[in-house]
Structures are given as structure tokens and as C-alpha cells.
């Protein structure tokens, strides 16, 4: 796929920066240069590229983020079991080590690429791009990118996804959105997971979690699900179907209008 995009993006960035930069001389003989470019320009550029690839192949990409152990992989397993006949799914798994999660997904007959980040606490757009080389996007409708379990670092790196899905398990505090505002502000949907445990955890109130999300000026839908019992899965799957249809409709529009839609996902 990179015959068309050309993956050497550092040079492309240099060129972009050259156009914006302004030079001025200070009294001391030093030169002050106004740059005004995003600190993550390199990553954002690659992310834009990834998004173009997804759009070109008609794929909806969802970045799945949460703390470690909130049930991301089991949610994906249940979702695959429910939607596997309807859509062609694929998964990119991000973990510091092991191939375990990708093996769980492959066991369900769905292509899965494992990215092991080593010590890196997040996925970035370049890692996702490399993983895309191993997936045939023409055979995919819906791609989940399961990020490294972490509520801080992944929030800073655009991967080229169309939507951010955040899991918050009931074994965590219901004030998590207030503690991690950068992450929860970017959510397009929040799933409160492991709701089968709610009877044992009387200090987690889903309405309080939702209130903290609203305080971040985020109107994203909040669903309670238990991947274990299946409770609440219908509402989540209905939202996914709706987003798949909305994405198809968007892809029918001009590229300029489409990129407007994702502006709020990008960092300046």
C-alpha cells in the first residue's frame, strides 16, 4: 500500500515546516525563529496517512483504550462472536510483551496483528502503520486497535482512528474521568465494563461516572456492559452498527468534508 503513500515522512515534515517558519534577528545576534508547529507533528502526519488508508479501503477504525485489566480483549471476543457474520473484523493488539491477546482473537477466526511495544507505554501512528502492512484492508470493514492498557499516554497519540472507545470497569473508581480528563474528553463512547460485579461493588455508581464525563463537556454515549453475562451488549452493538452506517455515508462525501469530521480528534 505504501507504493502510493511513500512512507518516508520525516522529509515530508521538513518540507512542511519550511513553509511555516519565520526568521527574525534578535539584538544579541541570536536568531529567534517562530515555528508554531505541533509537537507531535510527525506522529499526526502519519496518523493522517493511516486515516487516508482506512478511508480508501472503506474501513472504520476504532481506538480502544482503558486501564490494564478492564476487559478490552474479552469485549472484543464477544463483539466478534456477535458481529462476525455481519462485518469483516480485524484487530491490532498493543501490549508491552506477549502475543497472548492476538492469539485469543485469531482463535475466533479474525485476523489479528500483535504489536509488542517493549517499554513504550502507548501505540503511536508509526507502529500502527507498520502493522497495517500485514493486514489486507480490502478484506476488512471494521478494525479495532486495542491500545496498551494505560489511561495517560495513549491519549496524546493520534493513530489515524475514526473513533475513540474507552472502557471503564466497575472495579475502578467512578471518578476516573475526573482524574484522567485528557483521555475521557476524547471518548466518542464509554463502556462501563464488568457490570455483573456491580452488586458487590456498591461504591461504583454508573450515574456518577457519567456525570464526570459530562463535566468534561463530552456528550459521548455511556453504555453499561458485561461481556461475561452479555447484559448491555445489545446497546453497544447497536451503536457500532450505527457508526458503521454513518462511516459509510461519510465516505460517500468529499475528502475535505471528511477531514473536517476528525478535526476534534487531532491535537493542534
Amino acid at each position, binding site marked *: 500500500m505504501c507504493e502510493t503513500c511513500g512512507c518516508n515522512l*520525516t522529509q515530508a*515534515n*521538513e518540507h512542511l*515546516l*519550511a513553509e511555516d*517558519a519565520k*526568521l527574525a534577528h*534578535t539584538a544579541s*545576534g*541570536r*536568531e*529567534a*525563529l*517562530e*515555528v*508554531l*508547529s*505541533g*509537537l*507531535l*507533528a*510527525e*506522529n499526526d502526519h502519519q496518523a493522517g496517512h493511516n486515516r487516508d488508508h482506512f478511508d480508501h479501503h472503506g474501513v472504520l477504525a476504532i481506538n480502544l483504550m482503558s486501564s490494564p485489566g478492564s476487559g478490552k480483549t474479552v469485549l472484543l471476543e464477544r463483539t466478534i462472536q456477535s458481529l462476525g457474520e455481519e462485518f469483516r473484523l480485524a484487530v491490532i493488539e498493543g501490549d508491552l510483551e506477549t502475543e497472548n491477546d492476538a492469539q485469543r482473537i485469531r482463535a475466533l477466526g479474525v485476523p489479528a496483528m500483535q504489536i509488542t511495544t517493549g517499554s*513504550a*507505554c*502507548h501505540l*503511536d501512528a508509526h507502529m500502527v502503520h507498520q502493522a497495517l502492512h500485514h493486514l489486507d484492508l480490502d478484506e476488512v470493514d471494521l478494525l479495532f486497535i486495542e491500545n496498551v492498557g494505560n489511561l*495517560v*499516554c495513549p*491519549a*496524546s*497519540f493520534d493513530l489515524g482512528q475514526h473513533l475513540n472507545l474507552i472502557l471503564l470497569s466497575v472495579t475502578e473508581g467512578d471518578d476516573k*474521568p*475526573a*482524574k484522567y*480528563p*485528557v483521555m475521557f*474528553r476524547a471518548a466518542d463512547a464509554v463502556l462501563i465494563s464488568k457490570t455483573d460485579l456491580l452488586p458487590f461493588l456498591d461504591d461504583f455508581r454508573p450515574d456518577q461516572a457519567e456525570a*464526570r464525563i*459530562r*463535566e*468534561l*463537556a*463530552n*456528550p459521548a454515549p455511556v453504555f453499561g456492559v458485561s461481556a461475561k453475562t452479555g447484559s448491555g451488549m445489545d446497546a453497544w452493538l447497536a451503536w457500532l452498527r450505527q457508526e458503521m452506517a454513518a462511516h459509510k455515508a461519510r465516505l460517500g462525501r468529499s475528502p475535505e468534508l471528511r477531514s473536517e469530521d476528525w478535526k476534534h480528534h487531532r*491535537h*493542534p
Partner: protein
Amino acid sequence: MHELSICQALLRQVEDIARREGADRVTKIILRVGPLGGVEPQLLQQAFGFARVGTLAAEAELSIEEAEILVHCLDCDAEGQALANRLLCPVCGSYRTRLLRGDELILASLELTRTTRDLLTDSEGYEHV
């Protein structure tokens, strides 16, 4: 932890610009970071101390301007400051607000020097080869 990755990306960008401008040294880097930018200025400073070694910015000062959060209310049209985890309208309390400022993560400007040219320029300002 991701502050180190961000620092490395910053330094790549800074070195590219410095080389393009023919500078041999970067003396100051000025960033603008908002509370919703996703980085801790203090951690960024620490990471910078390690990441800058061996680069054109090895002796550069990193200056981080911290921006304020400013929201615009879609219901009552008011504008005002807000807290990172409370982005409600400061006037009517609505959550239907749009962030105007506060998620910046910007390389604002650089200060560069050209040591070699300074040494080769005589008192009348002529350059020697």
C-alpha cells in the same frame, strides 16, 4: 512516561529546523503547553535533560509556557476559564461547551546561534573562508 517520546520527537523537529537554517546550536526552545495537552511540564523538563544530550540542542534551555483553559458555551454564548476536569460553562453551567484553548502542545519558537560564522567574521563584519 510518554514525555520522553514527545521530547525525542521535539528534538528531531528542532534539529531539522536548526540544520535547515544553517545554525550550529540551539540556545532556547519555547513550547506552549495546555493543561489538556496530555503532558506534564515538569516531566517534560526532566526528559529533556536526558534527550538533548548529543543533539544540536545539548545546551539549550527549554522554556514551557503553560496556557490557560478557555471554553465557549454553545448554549449561552459566554466565554470563560475552566478547570481541566470541569469544562462546564462558567456562566450557565452547561456542558455543551467548546474548548477554545487549553489543549495546546506547540513548538512556539527557537533561538539559534551560528558559532562558526561568528568566529570567521572580523571586526568590520567581513567573512573569511
